[in-house]
């Protein structure tokens, strides 16, 4: 019903657009140039005003009134049976809702049936009231805008102001969401630190990670929340991945942009970009099922013992996943280096190699650095591949042939495990927050580098 109202408001707004536009024309008897704003701005203003008023009314009245009804019904229930606990009262109310809509309730006693009647009557009033008020406001706002139409009426400026406000609102929503997420991370992190008695150093520098094994009465054991093994695992896998991805990605970008013929480029580049479209879960089982056994078997052949889940397998596959990001972005920036620079170098008798190494790559460096950074942040945040191929045990080792675990894997384990959410959330959020800080710092540092470089050569 409310959806129908929403579309009715839109239809009304559209009608006001048409009316406003033709009214603007008729106000000046067809001499459109006498208007301050062109007719469609008058129409647009009427449309926007009516739509905004109607939709706001729908949202505000719909939710506020609804919440008010729920509250008063709860109060009624508590008044009728004062011995009910709040949760039982809510159960009665939800049963009443179910009965009112003809659904199945847990019980149907006199109170519930009485409440169901209340729900029905108040609900109907609420519904029709909301519809009437919001449609009424739509019409009023539209009529007001149309009544205002006059040659000097600055409809264009007003509608531009409205558009600007709406754009600002969306930007604010985006920023506030981010802030909200960060705030909740911080909040949970503080909770967690409180839980381990503010022994933050034990989290940051401890080497034993087994948070859920030390839980006593909801309290974590500070000696078992050392995050070092996780960050070490993340670091190792990221390094392996970048060792695979950066050389291959960069060299293939150089090949594509400066050596490949147009025909090779035409199919090689889409092929590379296709790699970027493969879901990471596919890479994950490729790593776990194909590459890891292969590495183990070839290790055995030369007398090495390699765990069936190893940092090496996960890192290599993650590197393969990152290749297209680096190669595609680097190819774009290398291509953006003007041909005139290459010509200048060739004109001095430089070879292709010298030109690329000494002119093209330095000119493209800021872009290449950001491509690599993007790759690093993908690697740090990647979860699926490591869940499947790197192992779960928090194992502090420098040997890439052993199983390691990463920050993201541990977050997954904590959240999907069957420990109570309130206990598991603390370490998970804290890991998330720390990871966020690390990537943020890394990004800032890289921005600095790029900026310094830009200053030198722009």
């Amino acid at each position, binding site marked *: 019903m409310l959806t129908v109202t929403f579309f009715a408001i839109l239809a009304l707004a559209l009608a006001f657009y048409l009316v406003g536009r033709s009214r603007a024309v008729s106000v000046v008897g067809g001499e459109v140039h006498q208007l301050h704003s062109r007719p469609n701005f008058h129409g647009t203003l009427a449309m926007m005003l009516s739509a905004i008023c109607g939709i706001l009314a729908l949202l505000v009245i719909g939710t506020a009134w609804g919440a008010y009804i729920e509250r008063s019904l709860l109060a009624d229930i508590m008044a009728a049976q004062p011995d009910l606990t709040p949760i039982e009262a809510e159960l009665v109310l939800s049963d009443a809702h179910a009965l009112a809509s003809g659904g199945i309730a847990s019980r149907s006693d006199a109170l519930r049936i009485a409440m169901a009647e209340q729900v029905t009557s108040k609900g109907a009033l609420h519904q029709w009231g909301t519809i009437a008020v919001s449609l009424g406001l739509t019409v009023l706002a539209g009529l007001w805008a149309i009544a205002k139409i006059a040659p000097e009426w600055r409809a264009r400026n007003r509608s531009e102001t409205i558009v600007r406000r709406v754009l600002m609102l969306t930007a604010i929503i985006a920023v506030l969401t981010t802030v909200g997420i960060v705030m909740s991370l911080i909040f949970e992190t503080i909770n967690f630190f409180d839980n381990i008695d503010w022994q933050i150093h034990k989290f940051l520098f401890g080497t034993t990670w087994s948070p859920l094994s030390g839980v006593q009465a909801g309290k974590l054991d500070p000696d078992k929340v050392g995050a070092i093994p996780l960050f070490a695992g993340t670091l190792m896998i990221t390094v392996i991945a970048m060792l695979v991805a950066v050389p291959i990605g960069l060299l293939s970008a150089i090949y594509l942009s400066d050596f490949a013929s*147009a025909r090779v480029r035409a199919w090689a580049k889409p092929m590379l970009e296709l790699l970027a479209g493969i879901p990471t879960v596919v890479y994950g089982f490729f790593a776990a099922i194909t590459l890891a056994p292969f590495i183990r078997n070839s290790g055995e052949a030369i007398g090495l013992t390699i765990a069936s889940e190893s940092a090496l397998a996960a890192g290599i596959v993650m590197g393969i996943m990152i290749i297209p990001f680096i190669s595609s972005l680097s190819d774009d920036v290398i291509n953006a280096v*003007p*041909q*005139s*620079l*290459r*010509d*200048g*170098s*060739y*004109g*001095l*008798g*430089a*070879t292709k190699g*010298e030109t690329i190494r*000494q*002119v093209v790559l*330095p*000119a493209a460096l800021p872009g290449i650095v950001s491509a690599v950074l993007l790759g690093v942040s993908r690697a740090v945040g990647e979860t699926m591949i490591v869940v499947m191929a790197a192992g779960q045990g928090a194992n502090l080792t420098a040997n890439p042939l052993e199983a390691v675990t990463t920050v993201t894997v541990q977050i997954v384990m904590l959240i999907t495990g069957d420990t109570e959410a309130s206990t598991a959330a603390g370490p998970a959020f804290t890991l998330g927050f720390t990871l966020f800080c690390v990537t943020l710092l890394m990004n800032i540092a890289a921005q600095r580098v790029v900026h310094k470089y830009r200053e*030198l*050569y*722009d």
Partner: protein
Amino acid sequence: MSKNIKISAKNVDVFYGDTHAIKGVDVEIEDKSVTAFIGPSGCGKSTFLRCINRMNDTIDICRVTGDILLEGEDIYAKSIDPVQLRARVGMVFQKPNPFPKSIYDNVAYGPTIHGLAKNKAELDEIVEQSLRRAAIWDEVKDRLHQPGTGLSGGQQQRLCIGRAIATAPEVLLMDEPCSALDPIATAQVEELIDELRASYTVVIVTHSMQQAARVSQKTAFFHLGNVVEYGDTDKIFTNPEDSRTESYITGRIG
């Protein structure tokens, strides 16, 4: 006054895809002299100039036919390495294109890759000499290690001239080297060209009749991809044979 022929082009045609940009051009460029190419915009001066050091190789759609001989050797022959050719035949481009490196490194680039300097002191010397000859030393001597891209357009152009002469080519191709320069810098560059003539062969494209008349010994007038007239500069400017040449230099076509 008979001079050696440094570059000899015979029946050269250039195509950009289907565009026929140069049509059967024959030109003989004398050693240790300045040759000017003049002609209206789009007539193919730059295109022909780029043929002489095979810069057109870098354009996929460009096709060159005919013979261009440098000291009797066909530069389009299989045995010729375009990289070596371009070290002998340097080029200053129509648009200044300094590398995103320091001023010093811009000039040192050519000498370094060709191993012209045995040590840092020699390299410093080459850089200074080249910048002096390009009439920009005084302006940049205190900021040699700042980026070349931070110079003004005219300074960039002189930097590019300095960069080209630092490589010590035998032939220097200059595509409108003074188009972004003020009269003082123009006079300095013209002086440089005059001085270069003693040891190098210079080919210059210019839109300024006065400049062509001042600096060159020979002038070629290009029109719609053809060389309409080629001969001694004095003769072209005082007594042209072709009516189109006359119209152009007196300003009636352009």
